[in-house]
């Protein structure tokens, strides 16, 4: 029996649920992870990643010393180097001086538009706040974004439009108080496993009715009263038809509409064409299911809506989210426990990275960069001369990739892996090859870092202090459990060290980087981010605090909008059905939709360097038996999947988990990178790409062509 040297309580680094972890440490290594049964978020339950997946910290491929590329890289000739022989080890001083030289050089020549940064939803609030402060205060650019753009950007824009807020309205555990709840575009059992447990218990133990609206027969369908299997991209017609039935059958909450909303009359007029019959014709969902779903949702005492990336990851993602918001506004199913609009955030800290301003249009607290009063406030806060900060919106992630070579010359990537996660990877790769200078700050030499000039080895979540903000706005502590591995450093210390060098080189007055501990960074965040005004580390010791936290005695906010919306009245907005941008045709007859599996995380930097990879070692494409018959593919057979942008090879899994006409491929596997196939067309307002629908062709291959794991570095 192993006795731990110590047990450190911290927050899980995987998904947005934010489970409490106890790391059991022996000889500075984690050998067991437990969770206390009184943990408010997860009640001691964990998923496979939190309980068994933290071994990536100790993986032999972890890079723990600064590296510099031996071969100088040039725009157009930039290459990927996974082999350590292509790199030489450097001191931190040398690596950071080189980064300072090159970034300030590009800045001198090309100005603020020449630089951009990818911040990181895996890193802490403090890490994110500091990186955006560096690029804004020193390089005067708003070209900073992170994977929220590829995630819930459409939901955020729609929620900001309609309510003036950009987060879950309620606490996930309140599903226990819902009589009816809708889950749409969320494979909750695999992507938010602990919230799924609470949903299952709500159904099985308390008799709540679940409505699943999703093109896949996901596990939650086993618990559902209704399943509406819609074709990818037909969300607006389906939800608008539900709204149509609610209005038609007199199920709308007129008192709520009158007291709390605006724009209803115009919206109501726009619902005319969205009959259940019309919705059935475009979505494939039986009209009777639409009617039944409308009656069930509107007729409930308390009904809530949960959604994930199946809603926003479309070129009309903002409209999709708006069509959900309308349902809550017209029935008054918001502002009480067990109701609400609940976008389940993917990353452990995507809410926090967004809150802390790692976005091109917003300072911390969703305060617009184009608002002069806001900009002046940040001029003062960061010791910048009046008018010094950039007043123009910066570029989003996909726009940054598109602008490489045209305006963007130098890129700083903290902890993200766009060479796996950006859409249309062949194009993205071509763009990355045009960079003049690339810095990667990461744990592993992933597909993006391999393109870099300089690799800065960062600390894992278990090697640093900080905070994460989970999907229901709970700010929780991250605590250092083990010493920094090798020469790795915490992200916040890397950013501060670099910032001091850059501001000295640029001759700027200091913006303030002398923090002894992340708690001091949080104290600064509290001064500029109103929702975090009352957050101090000493207040986060137990279960954390849910934002908004208005002052240092405020208890936090479990659910929002009891009396009013931040923008005043909830806003209805008439919608039109805009089909997916790439329709199927004879050459590309199937719709590809992408997503995650339980055992893996996004671009795979972490989970493919873990024992989790033994549990799910190979990409599999889900194919309906009907399409398997048409394409002549047997279960387990290798297939070639092609879109207009690329081709991959992987094995097929014949299953009715996906509906006929739709195939599903997870995006974690470099050997068969789903994003070689996806589209880089984006939602016009949220700039989120259409990951959830593009046209593909599937062809059977012989066994010899099967993808080999040896291809992986």
């Amino acid at each position, binding site marked *: 029996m192993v006795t731990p040297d110590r047990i450190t309580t911290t927050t899980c680094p995987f998904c947005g649920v934010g489970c409490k972890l106890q790391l059991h440490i022996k000889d500075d290594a*984690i050998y067991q992870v437990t969770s206390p049964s009184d943990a408010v978020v997860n009640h001691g*339950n964990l*998923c496979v990643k939190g*309980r068994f997946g933290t071994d990536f910290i100790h993986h032999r491929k972890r890079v723990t010393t600064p590296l510099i590329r031996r071969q100088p890289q040039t725009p157009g000739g930039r290459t990927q180097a996974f082999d350590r022989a292509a790199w030489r080890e450097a001191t931190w001083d040398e690596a950071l001086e080189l980064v300072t030289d090159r970034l300030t050089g590009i800045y001198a020549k090309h100005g603020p538009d020449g630089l951009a940064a990818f911040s990181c939803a895996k890193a802490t609030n403090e890490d994110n706040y500091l990186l955006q402060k560096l690029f804004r205060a020193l390089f005067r650019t708003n070209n900073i974004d992170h994977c929220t753009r590829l995630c819930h950007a459409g939901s955020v824009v729609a929620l900001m439009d309609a309510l003036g807020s950009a987060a879950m309205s309620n606490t996930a555990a309140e599903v226990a108080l819902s009589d009816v709840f809708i889950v749409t575009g969320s494979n909750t059992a695999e992507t938010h496993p602990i919230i799924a447990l609470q949903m299952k218990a709500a159904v099985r133990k308390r008799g709540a009715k679940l409505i699943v609206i999703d093109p896949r027969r996901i596990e939650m369908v086993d618990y559902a009263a209704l399943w509406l299997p819609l074709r990818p991209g037909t969300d607006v017609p389906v939800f608008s038809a539900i709204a149509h039935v609610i209005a038609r059958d007199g199920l709308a909450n007129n008192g709520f509409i009158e007291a709390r909303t605006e724009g209803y009359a115009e919206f109501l007029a726009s619902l005319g064409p969205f009959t259940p019959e019309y919705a059935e014709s475009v979505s494939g969902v039986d009209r009777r299911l639409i009617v039944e779903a409308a009656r069930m949702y509107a007729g409930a005492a308390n009904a809530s809506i949960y959604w994930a990336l199946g809603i926003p990851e479309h070129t009309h993602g903002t409209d999709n989210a708006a069509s959900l918001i309308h349902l809550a506004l017209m029935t008054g199913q918001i502002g009480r426990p067990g109701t609400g609009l609940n976008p389940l955030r993917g990353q452990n800290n995507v809410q926090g990275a967004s809150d802390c301003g790692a976005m091109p249009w917003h300072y911390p607290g969703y305060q617009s960069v184009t608002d002069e009063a806001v900009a002046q406030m940040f001029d003062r806060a960061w010791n910048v001369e009046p008018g010094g900060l950039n007043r123009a919106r910066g570029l989003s992630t996909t726009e940054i990739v598109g602008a490489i070579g045209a305006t963007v010359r130098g890129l700083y990537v903290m902890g993200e892996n766009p060479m796996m996660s950006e859409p249309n990877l062949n194009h993205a790769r071509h763009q990355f090859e045009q960079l003049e200078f690339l810095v990667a700050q990461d744990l592993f030499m992933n597909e993006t870092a391999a393109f870099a000039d300089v690799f800065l080895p960062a600390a894992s979540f278990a090697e640093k202090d900080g905070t994460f903000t989970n999907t229901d706005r709970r700010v929780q502590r991250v605590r250092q459990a083990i010493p920094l591995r090798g020469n790795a450093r915490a992200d916040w210390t890397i950013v501060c060290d670099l910032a001091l060098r850059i501001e000295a080189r640029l001759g700027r007055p200091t913006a303030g980087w002398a923090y002894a501990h992340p708690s001091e960074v949080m104290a600064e965040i509290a001064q500029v981010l109103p929702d975090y005004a009352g957050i101090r580390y000493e207040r986060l010791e137990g279960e954390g605090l849910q934002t908004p936290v208005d002052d240092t005695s405020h208890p936090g906010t479990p659910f929002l909008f009891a009396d009013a919306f931040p923008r005043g009245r909830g806003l209805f907005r008439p919608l039109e059905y805009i089909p997916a941008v790439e329709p199927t045709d004879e050459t590309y007859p199937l719709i590809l939709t992408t997503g995650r599996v339980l055992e893996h995380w996004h671009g795979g930097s972490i989970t493919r360097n873990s024992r989790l990879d033994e549990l799910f070692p190979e990409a599999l494409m889900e194919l309906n038996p009907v399409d398997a018959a048409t394409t002549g593919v047997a279960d387990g057979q290798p297939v070639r999947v092609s879109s207009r942008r690329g081709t991959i090879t992987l094995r097929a899994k014949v299953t009715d988990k996906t509906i006929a006409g739709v195939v599903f491929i997870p995006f974690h596997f470099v050997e068969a990178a789903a994003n070689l196939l996806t589209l880089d067309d984006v939602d016009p307002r949220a700039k989120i790409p259409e990951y959830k629908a593009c046209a593909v062709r599937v062809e059977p291959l012989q066994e010899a062509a099967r993808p080999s794991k040896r291809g992986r570095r």
Partner: protein
Amino acid sequence: MTETVHLTINGLTVETTRGATVLDAAGAIGIDIPTLCYDPRCAPNGLCRMCVVEATGARLLQAACVTRAVEGMTITTESPRITRARRTVLEMLAASTDLSETPDALAQIAETGADIARFAGGRERRPPVVADNPMFVRDYAKCILCWRCVQVCAEDAQYAFAINFDGRGFDTQIATFFGKPLPETTCVFCGQCVGVCPSGALKPLRAWELEHPDGPAA
């Protein structure tokens, strides 16, 4: 409204809510009833019989974890009869099971003065270690059959239903259906079972490797 009931435990009057168990009611006034299988995360099942108490009007000892408090009930939690029952349970368990990593049982053996050699020479439960997946190891020689793992795999948490009791009587063991390896079952490797295991029967593979540096699990 929640209804209250009154009962007497070891001569003390306790008020509790209808539906509460004797174990809950005793805990509320600081009376410690020993348990082995009980875990607040799981629905109690009264399997281990360590928490037995005397209840007036009841012929047999009652398991406090599943006995509901009712109005006027009188409970005794310590008596020679109770101690003998607990001791015998521990002596039989010690004879058949490796209790080296069940601290609650070891503490109760010391507390009750159980003679762990009393049934020495009887059959021991020593099934082989099961290491059929990359996440955790199952060493059922250490299993005290508390059923917590089965419950958290089912309705008490995960709704995966990958494991259950297999066999009857002495040969009862936790197993997958048809004895399949875990990766071929509905198991999702959440490890809720590992989290509630009180006896070291379920362990993360990494912890197992630290204990057995000379080789992988069998």
